[in-house]
Structure formats: C-alpha cells, structure tokens
C-alpha cells in the first residue's frame, strides 16, 4: 500500500477509452457501474504514462459517478497500479519462492547493476523502472518478469541484455488494455 501523491497534469480519457469504459459499465446491473473500476483504472494508467495521478483517479471517479475517495481506496490497494511516475518499461520481476530457487534474486541484482538503479527506481533517461512483485503464475517457467501486458519467461542474463537493447531501440511492444 502506498500514499496517494497529488502531482500530475490534467487527465481525460481519449474518446476511444471513454467509449470503452462506458461499455464496461454496462456489464454490471444498473447502479453497479462501480464494478468497472479496476479495468477503468488499468486503462487510465495506460493513458497516463503508466501511473495513476490524482487527476487521473478523479477523472475515473467522475466517469463512474462515484466519489474520488472510493477510487483512491481502490487504487492504493492493488499492486498493479503505480501511484508515482514510472519509466516507459516497467520490469516487474517475480521474486517469490519458485522463481527464487531458479535464480530470480541473482537476475534482479544483475539487472539493477546493469541499469544502475534499485527497486522502484527509474533510470535517468526515463526508460526503465524495476519492480519486485509476487508470484505471477509462471513458476514452471522461472525466472520471469512481466513488462506491460506480456510475460518474459525462462529469463537469463543474455535475454535481459537483449531485451534492454530492444527496449532502447523502441522495439518492444507492451500490449494494451484497450480492446483493439
């Protein structure tokens, strides 16, 4: 759980995202549109450079017709939401037991040294943030990390090197929460 920060520029969903969120609200009974909050926040985060600023959360509250505090409560509970700015590529390494016995900790150390940052820090060029997360359901394909929507499994130092180069060259597709 983390504190809500107050900086951030004004935020509004793109037209496509707004239409999508309004569509999501219809999946729940009348007056239960609050249930669309988790996915609405995923989309907002994606449209706000990977993190949820107060203006972004306030906008989600407005779209869902709920109070801002209801959104802050939720946003601060779930680990996939970033409440502070992050780099373009957030490397989320699993460090739970099964990944740890396959060398996750050494690999995380390697990446930190390579990028010159620690956990929850972002490189000066704004490209990379390292996060350590709990089991992502890829234990048989360990060690692994998630970046955007995709899993990168059976990681090695060579794979990390290649991945970082590809990111720097702008070749990595992060996927999107939006439907199309």
């Amino acid at each position, binding site marked *: 759980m983390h504190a809500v920060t107050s900086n951030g520029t004004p935020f509004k969903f793109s037209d496509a995202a707004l239409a999508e969120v309004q569509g999501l609200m219809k999946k729940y009974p009348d007056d239960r549109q609050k249930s669309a909050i988790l996915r609405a*926040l995923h989309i907002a985060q994606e449209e706000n450079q990977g993190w949820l600023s107060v203006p972004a959360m306030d906008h989600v509250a407005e779209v869902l017709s709920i109070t801002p505090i209801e959104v802050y409560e939720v946003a601060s509970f779930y*680990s996939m939401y970033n409440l502070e700015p992050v780099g373009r590529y957030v490397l989320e390494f699993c460090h739970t037991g*099964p990944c740890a*016995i396959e060398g996750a900790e050494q690999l995380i150390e390697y990446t930190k040294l390579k990028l010159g940052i620690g956990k929850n820090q972002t490189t000066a060029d704004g490209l990379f943030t390292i996060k350590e997360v709990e089991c992502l359901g890829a*234990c048989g394909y360990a060690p692994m990390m998630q970046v955007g929507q995709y899993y990168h499994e059976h990681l090695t130092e060579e794979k990390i090197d290649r991945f970082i180069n590809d990111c720097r060259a702008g070749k990595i597709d992060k996927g999107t929460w939006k439907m199309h």
Partner: protein
Amino acid sequence: MGRKLLLEHAHVEGIDSYEVYRKHGGYRSVEKALKNMTPDEVVEEVKKSGLRGRGGAGFPTGLKWSFLAKPEGVPRYLLCNADESEPGTFKDRFLMEKIPHLLIEGMITSSYALGANTSYIYIRGEYSWIVKILEKAIAEAYAAGWLGKNILGKGYDLDLYVNPGAGAYICGEETALIESLEGKRGNPRIKPPFPAVKGLWQCPTVVNNVETIAAVVPIINDGGEEYAKLGIGKSTGTKLISACGNINKPGVYEIELGVTVEQFLYSDEWCGGIKNGKQLKALVAGGSSVPILPHFLVTKNIRGEQRLMTYESLADGGFESGTMLGSGGFIVYDEDQCIVRNTWNFTRFYHHESCGQCSPCREGTGWMEHVLWRLENGQGKMSDIDLLADVAKKIEGNTICPLGDAAAWPVNSAIRHFREEFEWHVREPKTCMERNYGLVKEPEMYVQG
C-alpha cells in the same frame, strides 16, 4: 493412469477457436443439460461425480451448489475464480490459454444448474492477455447462440463477462473476490452470512475455481458415475497439477487422482525426477500455503506406505507428518535449497499480501518475516525459533479469513521438520551465509516406521 478429461484436446491445433473446439465435441454438455435435464438434475449429476473444489479447499462441489439460496425474484450469480495467485500454481492459466472454450462451456452448464442469468469470470489482472483470449471465446459463443437470450430456444438467458483484478492474492479468497468485483478493496468478509445466501451485491452466489467449472463438462457429457470411476475413494476424477522447482520437466499435467507421488515425481511422463542428478530435499505439494514435507515423508507416509496423489493420502498423518493437495501447486526442492530462506520468502509473500484487517495476520506475518530474515542472515538467536513457532500459533485460527492459517502453516511445518537446519543457522551464522545445510537426517522413528 493416462486418462485425460480436461486437457485431452488441449494440444489440438486451433482448439482455442470455436469451430475446432466444437468439432471436437465442444458444447455438448450445454445441449444435453438444456435439452434433456432440469437444473436440479445437473446438480445431482455433479453430486454423483464426487467432484471436489479444485481451488484449494476440496469442498464437494455438488453439495456447495445445493446450499445456494433461491429466494423468489432475487438474481443468483456464479463467479469463476481465476485469480490464481498461490505461489506454485499455474494450472488455470494453462487451461484458459489453451482451451478457453472449455471454461466458457462449463460456465454455461453450471450457470444453468444454479439458475444464474449473469456470471462473471474474475481473473487476476496480470493475466491480461488471457482476458483477451477469454473475451474472444465469449464473443464466439454469443455468435453461435450459446450465450445471450433464449439459449437453444429453451427460454434460458445467460450473460457472461470477464472481470480482471489488479494484483492482490487475497482476491482469490471468495468473499474478497466478491468485494473486489463490487469495485472495492479486496477485504474478506466476516462469515456468516455465506456467499450462498448473501454474496455479490447481497445476492446468493457460488464461487468456483476454473478447473472445477471445467470438470462439469465431462461430468455432464459422460455422467457423474463415469467420472467417479476415475480416482480413488473420495478423490474422484482427474486433477491438474502444476509442477515446478528443481525437476527435469516443469509444467502442467492432468493426472488421474491416485497416481503415486513417486511415479508423479520420478517418471518421465510427469516431472522426470530431480534436475542435475541431485537428491530430493523437500516438497510443497499443493501451493505455498500447505505444510512442507521433508524428503523422507514425500513418497511414503509415516507408516512406510506409498503416498498417493489424492486429498486423503497427502493429508495422511495430519499436520504432524502429512500435508495437503491444495491447489495442485507442486514445488520440488533439491538438496541445495535452504529451507530457512524459502520460509522467509513465503512469509514475506504473506506479509505483503495480508489485507491488514486482522491484527494477528497483519502484525504476525510481519514479525515472522522479520525474525526469519534475522535467522537467514546469521543474526538469529536460538530463542527465535520458538518465538517464530509461537507467533505462527497465535495467528492460526484467529483471523477473519484463512490467509492467516496459510501464512502460519509453512512456518510451523518448516520448524517441525527442519528444526536442526534452523538451529544450524544460529550456531553457524557465518557458514549459513555461504552454503546451505543440505539434507536433514531421517529421525529414528521414521526409519523404523
């Protein structure tokens, strides 16, 4: 013991598409249920199958369904639990990725049985690409007339939606899942009332695991009695096991319940033995929450009998010398692994995932993490070992939801079976930082069996 019911077609090219799935017998269970059976008859068939919940607790599914309250004019909901966050568990992911229509089909047949007209699949947010796989399958099922209004002209309506989470292990607990689906923090509810009476939006609700729902398909196709012929005793049918750790062949396997642990662990059909010619040190048989077993209690129980992959056989010996089948997350440790470090790692997980509502869980997991860190880093005292056991005991049974117990069991069992390794960490603080303890010796009483 190679019979497969769920993954039989999982490797067929294009099975994730509607046409191929249908060609391989898909959606027959919906046809059969809606055309020839009343909802109660479907429930009856599931009861006869002996199917037990595959999410971890192993509660009989038919019985659970029969508890669902049916007040007039109040909607009922079926929620599929695809939160899958228990360390070591990655079976539901495999099923949904490979053969998504099996889950959709199971949801339709099960929703019909329960009289639900709206159902949701709550899936962990990190599985975001699977959200798309499922939504594509759902769209295909709507287009083919298996979902929507008046399905098969039988007057039954069903809408099915996918609801992704956003990173919280606790949302796999069924009442936390309901809270999360309502758009709130995932704080478990105090029970009673149970979801069967007051669940989603205070309406009667059933929550079932992905694999449980999928198993309803072969049960309705072939009949509950046929299903019950597979397996042993009260462990009927097949089970998906996700195997990981220091083995040659990690992966997801469908086994008939009753395979011996020895076969599962060492045969090439499944795990293929311990990697790099090492020896087995320990096993966590059913996800991080279940008690850990030392090598000498893995393939045999305390009386020297073969241990089987069943609910009963794995639990044989209770918490003294047994464990649980749990979610089927099978984690294997070789002789080089450190039990203290692993216990610290799991405890850090539970501390991180505690929702914070109950002080024994919120504070206790933090204390255990702290003390274990001390021991693992050569700063522990002998008295820390009993302190740990004491904190674990004070959490167990004193919390709103079972996460507290789940956090206590790995610690209790590690101390019970690997005490000398914990003591070694205190006695040899320098050595424990450089190398691992290796295998614990088999106590006399076990040898004599």
